[in-house]
């Protein structure tokens, strides 16, 4: 008794399935290995060729071979078949091979569902607005294909329109569900180890070149919206990992000591800045804030070297409100910590060592030594460049004395080595510097290309003091931006370049839209959901209340849609309305009017069936015929109404 889904696919249906497969496959191309994209494309071309020349499908054992080869390829690529990326790759192979195996609409349905599923997997890598638009296009095509599998005779355009209309009607339900479906803080269970491999950001170590790689990326690190005063750009140091330990060329964090209270006292006389940070996921625990925050954001802790840590790696967009003061008073550090801020590998950077030691004349203060180092670096005429020459293990020596060209890593690392050699405790601080103001929504956008490294030195009585050696040599980097600091001719990340004004304007608008998208669509988490629902009048929203609202609103939407779809225009002619009332009444007595019967014929038949009522029936029929086909006389209409109302068969 089920509709037949076992008859062979028509040619049109085959083309629909190919298009659906293609619509699901193309957005995935950037995130699968090239060989897999090529294999999938080849299978699609093969299927298309078979359809074009009306050739039969290949033997099953060929498909088995291709499947095995593809699976082996996936295993070689990812060393597993079960990770997130391997899973996507396998699904893609199945989607392609199912095309070569689909013989009936039932197989076709499997392809469409697989396409729906693959649409979801592209969000692992990207959830931007263009990807959302791609998703809609894929959905329309796949749904039209589903309609084509049921109804093979309709031509493509009506099918696409039907799919579009149905998806439009689905939008209210989507909105209600999106807002009210109780959100939980995922994940529900452990994710595959490669789940967050696509995220970029500052790492917990620094070797020459590591920030340089990062800086080529235009990806957004975080956004900041100030509430009230905005600090000057050259004071916007967004503090990240603090690196104290130097192993040969690599800087690593020192021993992490968690503290529950802030290890410093904010200076209440310096200006306070209030702002909200929206941090992009970067799969590392650190949070970024202006130096130095006056409180901790929720679910975070701090350390003795003033780092902000989230309790878990930041794997989804995170919003937090902060307040910072530029100046703070530090409590005395333990000797232990100061000692680790003086450690140096002895055998490297001999020239820098001896230079530093030369500053450490007995009796000179830390402040004097610091000034000497700054003066020295200024005198060396160091050049800030994104393309520093290759250096050996003696990075500081080669940078300060030989090439004199380097990047912020070289500046900060060499400076810290110099200070340590002069027996002044010093450490490298990484993070971001500056940012770009989007005038459209007044948001500061901090990109990976704003990544920066600077230094902190310990001055007796004053505590840790920020010194940015880059600023002393290339002040433009701090005062303006990267583009201004780098010598002309050096390659720049695309968006940092000076562009045309209108282009800039467009970009700002686009970023503002993106920001709203990120904040409200992608950043819609349990917290935001609670805030929003409280704002629209739900008291203490919990999942029970949300489910109740959800059911109520979905039910209402369903009722409205049902009413709109099933509502039939009532006749506008008042005489016709009365006549139909009369006919309905008789239909209940088994004397329904046939479609072909006019009022006279019907009245004659009725009179024969109900002789006692014959005069009344013929009166009603005459009145109706006169009103309907003659002049619409209000008196006659009223008479008809009265007669019909009084009529009892």
């Amino acid at each position, binding site marked *: 008794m089920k509709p037949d889904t076992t008859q062979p696919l028509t040619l049109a249906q085959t083309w629909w399935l190919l298009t659906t497969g293609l619509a699901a496959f193309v957005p995935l191309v950037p995130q699968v290995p090239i060989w897999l994209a090529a294999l999938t494309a080849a299978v699609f071309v093969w299927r298309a060729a078979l359809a074009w020349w009306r050739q039969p499908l290949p033997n099953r054992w060929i498909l088995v071979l291709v499947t095995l080869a593809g699976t082996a390829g996936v295993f070689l690529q990812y060393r597993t078949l079960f990770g997130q990326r391997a899973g996507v790759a396998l699904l893609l192979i199945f989607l392609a091979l199912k095309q070569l195996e689909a013989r009936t609409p039932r197989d076709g349905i499997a392809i469409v569902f697989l396409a729906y599923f693959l649409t979801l997997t592209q969000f692992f890598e990207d959830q931007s607005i263009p990807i959302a638009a791609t998703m809609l296009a894929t959905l329309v095509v796949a749904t039209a294909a589903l309609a084509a599998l049921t109804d093979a005779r309709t031509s493509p355009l009506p099918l696409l329109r039907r799919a579009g209309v*149905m998806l439009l009607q689905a939008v209210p*339900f989507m909105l209600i569900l999106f807002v009210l479906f109780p959100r939980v803080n995922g994940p529900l269970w452990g994710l595959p180890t490669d789940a967050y491999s696509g995220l970029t950001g500052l790492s917990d170590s620094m070797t020459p070149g590591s920030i340089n790689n990062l800086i080529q990326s235009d990806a957004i690190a975080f956004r900041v919206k100030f509430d009230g005063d905005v600090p000057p750009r050259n004071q916007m140091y967004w503090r990240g990992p603090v690196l104290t330990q130097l192993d040969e060329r690599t800087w690593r964090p020192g021993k992490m000591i968690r503290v529950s209270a802030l290890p410093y006292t904010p200076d209440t006389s310096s200006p306070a800045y209030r702002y909200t940070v929206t941090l992009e996921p970067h799969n590392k625990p650190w949070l970024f804030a202006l130096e130095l925050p006056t409180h901790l954001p929720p679910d975070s802790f701090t350390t003795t070297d003033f780092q902000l840590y989230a309790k878990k790696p930041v794997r989804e967009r995170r919003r937090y409100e902060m307040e910072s003061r530029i100046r703070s008073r530090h409590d005395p550090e333990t000797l232990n910590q100061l000692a680790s801020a003086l450690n140096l590998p002895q055998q490297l950077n001999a020239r820098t060592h001896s230079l530093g030691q030369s500053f450490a004349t007995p009796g000179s203060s830390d402040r004097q030594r610091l000034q000497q180092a700054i003066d020295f670096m200024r005198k060396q005429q160091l050049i800030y460049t994104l393309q520093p020459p290759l250096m050996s293990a003696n990075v500081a020596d080669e940078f300060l004395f030989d090439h004199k060209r380097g990047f912020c890593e070289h500046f900060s690392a060499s400076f810290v080595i110099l200070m340590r050699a002069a027996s002044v405790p010093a450490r490298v601080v990484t993070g971001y510097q500056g940012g770009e103001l989007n005038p459209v929504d007044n948001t500061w956008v901090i990109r990976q290309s704003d990544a920066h490294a600077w230094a902190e030195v310990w001055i007796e009585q004053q505590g840790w003091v920020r010194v940015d050696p880059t600023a002393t040599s290339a002040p433009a980097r701090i005062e303006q931006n990267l583009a201004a600091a780098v010598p002309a001719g050096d390659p720049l990340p695309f968006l940092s370049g000076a562009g045309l004004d209108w282009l800039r304007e467009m970009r700002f608008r686009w970023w503002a839209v993106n920001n709203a998208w990120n904040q409200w669509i992608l950043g819609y988490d349990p917290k935001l959901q609670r805030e929003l629902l409280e704002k629209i009048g739900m008291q203490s929203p919990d999942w029970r209340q949300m489910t109740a609202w959800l059911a109520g609103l979905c039910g209402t939407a369903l009722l409205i849609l049902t009413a709109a779809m099933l509502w039939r225009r009532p006749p506008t002619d008042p005489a016709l309305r009365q006549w139909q009332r009369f006919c309905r009444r008789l239909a209940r007595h088994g004397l329904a009017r046939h479609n072909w019967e006019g009022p006279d014929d019907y009245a004659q038949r009725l009179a024969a069936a109900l002789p006692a009522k014959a005069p009344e029936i013929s009166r009603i029929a005459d009145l109706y015929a006169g009103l309907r086909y003659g002049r619409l006389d209000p008196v006659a209409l009223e008479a008809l109404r009265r007669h019909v109302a009084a009529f009892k068969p």
Partner: protein
Amino acid sequence: MLLALRRSLNEQFIRWALRVRPPEPTPIHLTQRRVYVLPTRAGVLYAVSLLTMLIGAINYNLSLGYVLVFLLGGLGITTILHTFRNLAGLTLNIGTPKPVFAGDVAHFPVILHNSDHRTRSLLYLRLPEQAAIIADLPPTDHTRVMLPLPAAQRGWLILPRITLDTVWPLGLVRAWSYAAPGCECLIYPRPADAVPPAPTFGGMAGGRLASDTGDEDFAGLRRHQPSDPPHHVAWKAAARQDSHAPLQTKQFAGTAAQSLWFDWATLPLSMDAETRLSILTRWVLDAESDGLAWGLRLPGKEITQGHGPDHVHRCLKALALHEA
């Protein structure tokens, strides 16, 4: 056992679903209350896929994943309405089926009326254990479909309950309804293949040949019968007589000489009733195709001599409904 239980439950449901005791008066309006909706196998698979995707979206915290799943969920809801609307509100009328011979296929004409301003597509009409007939209905129009039903036995073939269903537009849900209009198709007995010669003419071949040439062989006049062909009326004779005199029919050799009576009683007693009816049916058909006039005698019933389509129908109906 289980199958029997299932079948009986299904039957119970259908009886409840019909809401009226069959046969229903026509036209039958498929009101919203008698149209039922359930997901198809593909629909269940769709729901399971969506659930999997939802878990994926929660687990990986994919906001766009939520958007996708909820949009597809909404699509699932709207497709229920579309499928339901494709069937609900349909009006069904039944025509008079043409009689057929036992062993042939009877066709019941069903007229579907669409009073809505949109097309209804891919409606499946089926009779129990028969293949479905597909119908499409343009806006505010009607269409006629013929429901085939094999006729096994002579007599009245009662139109069984009609199931109307549709999975349009996406095949994810199925809307269906039942209609049990009262309609019967007359089934003539199956004409026998091998027949003994008809009683009053010497042989099949002889009788037919005689009629082929017999029109020229004038053999006299007899009293006119209404079923006689007009060109056999003796118009000249009528003109000579006064206007109240009965018309005369010219009799020709080959037809007129024999008085054809197909009589139940002349068939051997060893034959069973159905075989006799079959043979009589064959004789009737052969006589008509040979252009002969004949009469039929059945136990308790006699049909006077005549010919022509109406006469054939009268005779075959008597044979079809004969109570052995």
